[in-house]
Structures are given as structure tokens and as C-alpha cells.
């Protein structure tokens, strides 16, 4: 018999990350890659055709695509698609007992698998931002655009993972938060705006979504959070969500037939 070895949390996360690495090169991985790339690619194509025909591409197009397509829709959709491919997938496919029966650190499992989908998603978000530069976005703004999407994706993916582990209908509550509450930022007064992901995306990217317009009857003045603080808030929020997701998995007894929290 070999001496019992207990992997550290880092080793656990690393093992899951490496073990599931081939999954990103399969169907769901390419869907995730396509989510930010396809809209930007289509807009790029249209912009190229317009230029070829001598038409002027609107100057604010990149910012509009960044906010109205990437940040408001495709980023949350990516979180919605990637979160069920995380540890939730092992619960649904009933493969998690094999991991839970090992001496690994249980709370590190959601993070390890989530990190894989996070890294893969950020890679394609960065490419999508490069595409925005190609349609007239400023190159100087590129780090802030990538940074804002990467930070928001970090927090949103962790948020969706946590909801998936806590609630039977976690995807629904997450979707309502990201697509209803977050979209309502322009009518939210004062500090309530700070409870949206969109607020931090706008403050890190340094640009505003044109949705917020004083001519709207219900529009509210948008509060400002310094860029670095906004990035820090999203990073910490993500860390807290990952930690809570880990705690939830650790505290939920999951047998061979699944768990109560399963949808």
C-alpha cells in the first residue's frame, strides 16, 4: 500500500483544469468561441463591404458593438453556456461521485473546472475586441475593453456557477439577473447601479452604452467608479462567488443518484 497522499487545493484545481482541457476543443468549446467572434465577424464583414462601396462606417460603431452586442448580450450568454459545462455538468452526468470519493479538496473542484472555461472564453473575447479595433475602435482602448470583458466574464461565470449549485433553477435566476436587472442600469438610482455588472464594464472600459440617455423619462444619472476599483470589485466578486460555489459543493452531500439541488 502506498502512503496516503492528499492533494492541495491548487493541485485539485490544476488536475481538473488539465483533465477537462480536451473539452474546450469540442462542440461546446467552439460554440463558446463563436459567441463573441460571430457577431463581431459579421459586423466586420458588413463594415468592409460598406467601405468597399465608399460608404462611411459610423465612428462610434466599435463602442456600440462592444456595449450593445458583446457586453450586454454575448458575454452573459457565454456565462450562461459555460457555467453548465463546469462542475454542474459532472453533477448532471452523475460523474461527480468519482471525484468526491477521492481525497481531493472538494471546494476547489468548481473553480478548477470553471477556470478552464474562463480562460478559453477570455481568449476569444480578446480576439473579438481585436475585431472591434478593426471596425474603427481605438487601439489605445483595447486593453480597457479586454480588461472590462475579462473582469465581467470572471464575475459572471462565477455567479452563474454559484447559482447553478445553489438553486434548482439557477440558470433562470441568473438569466433574469443578467438580462433584466443588469439591463435596467439606466433607470436604477445611485448606488443600486453598483449592483449591476454593466456598471463596472462601463467604468473599466471607459465608455458608456448609448442606452443611457437623459432624454429618456426614467433615465438616472450614472454614478462613477474609478477604473481600478471597478476591476477590483469584479475580481473580488468573482472570488467570493467561486468560494461560495466551492462551499456549496463541499456542504452538499451528493450520492450516486445525484443531489437534491439537481435540476
Amino acid at each position: 500500500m502506498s502512503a496516503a497522499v492528499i492533494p492541495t487545493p491548487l493541485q485539485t484545481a490544476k488536475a481538473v483544469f488539465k483533465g477537462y482541457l480536451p473539452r474546450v476543443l469540442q462542440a461546446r468549446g467552439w460554440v463558446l468561441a463563436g459567441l463573441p467572434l460571430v457577431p463581431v465577424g459579421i459586423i466586420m464583414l458588413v463594415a468592409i463591404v460598406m467601405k468597399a462601396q465608399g460608404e462611411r462606417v459610423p465612428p462610434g460603431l466599435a463602442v456600440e458593438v462592444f456595449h450593445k452586442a458583446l457586453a450586454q448580450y454575448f458575454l452573459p450568454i457565454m456565462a450562461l453556456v459555460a457555467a453548465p459545462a463546469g462542475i454542474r455538468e459532472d453533477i448532471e452526468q452523475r460523474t461527480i461521485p468519482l471525484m468526491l470519493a477521492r481525497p481531493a479538496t472538494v471546494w476547489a473542484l468548481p473553480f478548477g473546472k470553471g477556470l478552464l472555461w474562463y480562460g478559453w472564453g477570455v481568449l476569444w473575447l480578446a480576439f473579438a475586441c481585436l475585431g472591434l479595433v478593426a471596425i474603427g475602435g481605438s487601439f489605445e482602448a483595447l486593453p480597457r475593453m479586454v480588461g472590462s470583458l475579462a473582469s465581467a466574464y470572471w464575475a459572471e461565470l462565477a455567479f452563474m456557477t454559484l447559482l447553478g449549485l445553489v438553486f434548482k433553477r439557477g440558470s433562470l435566476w441568473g438569466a433574469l439577473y443578467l438580462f433584466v436587472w443588469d439591463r435596467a442600469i439606466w433607470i436604477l438610482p445611485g448606488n443600486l447601479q453598483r449592483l449591476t455588472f454593466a456598471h463596472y464594464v462601463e467604468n473599466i472600459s471607459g465608455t458608456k452604452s448609448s442606452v443611457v440617455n437623459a432624454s429618456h423619462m426614467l433615465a438616472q444619472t450614472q454614478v462613477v467608479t474609478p477604473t481600478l476599483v471597478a476591476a477590483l470589485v469584479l475580481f473580488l466578486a468573482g472570488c467570493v462567488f467561486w468560494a461560495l460555489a466551492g462551499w456549496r459543493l463541499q456542504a452538499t452531500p451528493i450520492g450516486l443518484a445525484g443531489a437534491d439541488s439537481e435540476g
Partner: protein
Amino acid sequence: MPIYAPTLPPRENLDRGSHPIAVLMRFDFGRVMKAKLGIFFGFLFLLILLIQLGSLYLRYLSNTSVAFSGMKDFASQILTQGPEYQADHLGQAVLIPMWFQVALIGGGLVARDTLHRIRPLIYAHPVRPQDYLLAKGGLAALLPFAIQLPFVLIPWAMSLMVAGKNGPIWTTLPLHLIPAALMIAILAGSVTLGASAMAGSPRAGFGWVLGIVLGTFALGGILAGLLKAKAFLAISPVALATAWPQLLCGMKDPFLDWVPTVIGTVAHVSLWIFVAAQRTKPSEAVL
């Protein structure tokens, strides 16, 4: 000793009992009913319906009550009028929660069978792929239709009861909005069917539906703005669903015109039914 050719037993009478489509639909319907989704969405839809009925009553009062006569002009400014008001009974307020609910339920219809490898068992019975598809698609369309129906019939009936033919709601409203509800239901049903067929689990199915619905809306909006052509919004099922009641109520400036709406709807319905048919072929059903 004679050798007899093998004979087959007489063909079994397969006409006994319900049709497979009815059996599958009944099973899924029972599961949906047990899912306890009704509480949240039921409350939400009830709230929207009450607001609609309140608005209806306000219009009635502003038209008939002396005490409210001073508010008539103000009410006409803040409340939508004419065909726009009629079409609003199936407006965004109803359709957005409807998309969420059909995503949640429809997204799991086929995906659940995929996750638990149920389809091989279903096809082991006298169920043809088209039966399976019709049963799933039928339920996926029935649900949004059932959600929309009260928003057409209840305000219409209330208007008739309180004000007769001169009420704020057209007496012919069901003739305009029930076909619209049907088109929306077919559209929503086929999108959720196709999305669910592509997913490996109900949660992923929910993600796929929302991804398709919201992603195309965002893209359509940007393309329409960039190319200054509203017709590009027709790539979005959300936009198509919004346009149908407006078109059928004869709104002057609908979200989309007839041609893109019809083409977009036909394209979406064909595409997603094709996707679902490909993904639910018996050859795909491996144990």
C-alpha cells in the same frame, strides 16, 4: 419430411390506445406540470394581466366618467391608442417573460431525453421520428400559445362586459391577435425545439434558447442601425414575435414590415425544425 418456409406472426394491431404523439405529449405535459414553474411565472403573468386590466379600466373611465373627463387629454398622451394599444396586449411586457418561460421549459424538452439517453428507448416502441418531433414541437408551441391566450381573451371579454361594443378594445380583437399568438407560438416552439435538440442537458438547452433569442436580437439591432434597414431585425425571433401582433392589428409603423416578418418566420421555423429533425434521427439515438 416436408420443410416449411418460415412464416411471420400476424401483424399486431397497432391502432390500439392513444397515438404516440398524444402519449409523448401527455407525458411531457405531466412533467411540466410537476415542475412547479407555475408559481413564479404565474404570479408574473397575473401581475401583467392585472396591469393590462387596470389600464383598460382607466381608458374606460376617461372616456365615460365626468370626474375623469379632465384627465382625458392627459390619458390619451401617456397611454397608447388605436391599433398600437390593441397590439400591445401581446406586447413586450407579455412576450419577454414568455420567452424566458419557453426557454426554461422548451429548452429541456429534447435535451432531457439526450442527457438521460431516453430516445433509444422511445424509438424501440412504434414511435416514428416525426411523431417524436411533432409531440415535442407541439408541446413547445402549445405552451406559448396557452400563455398568450388569456392576454387576448380576458381584456377583450372585460371590455365587452363593461362597455359593450363601444369599449376600448375592438370587438374583433381575437380575430387579430389569436392568429398572431399562433404565429408567435409556432415560432417560439420551433426555436426552442431546435435549441433543445442541440443541447446536451436541460440547462444547456435553456442557454441555447436564450443565446439564440437574445444574441440574434443584439446582432439584428446593430445591423439594422448600421445598414439603416429595419428588415435586418428579422433575424431575431424576438423582433418577429413583436411584429406579428402589430402587423395583424394594422399598426402604421410596425416593428417590422410584412415581407421580412413572413420571410424571417418561415426561415426560423424551417431552420430549427430541420436542426431538430437532424439531431433526433434514430441513428443519433445510441444507448
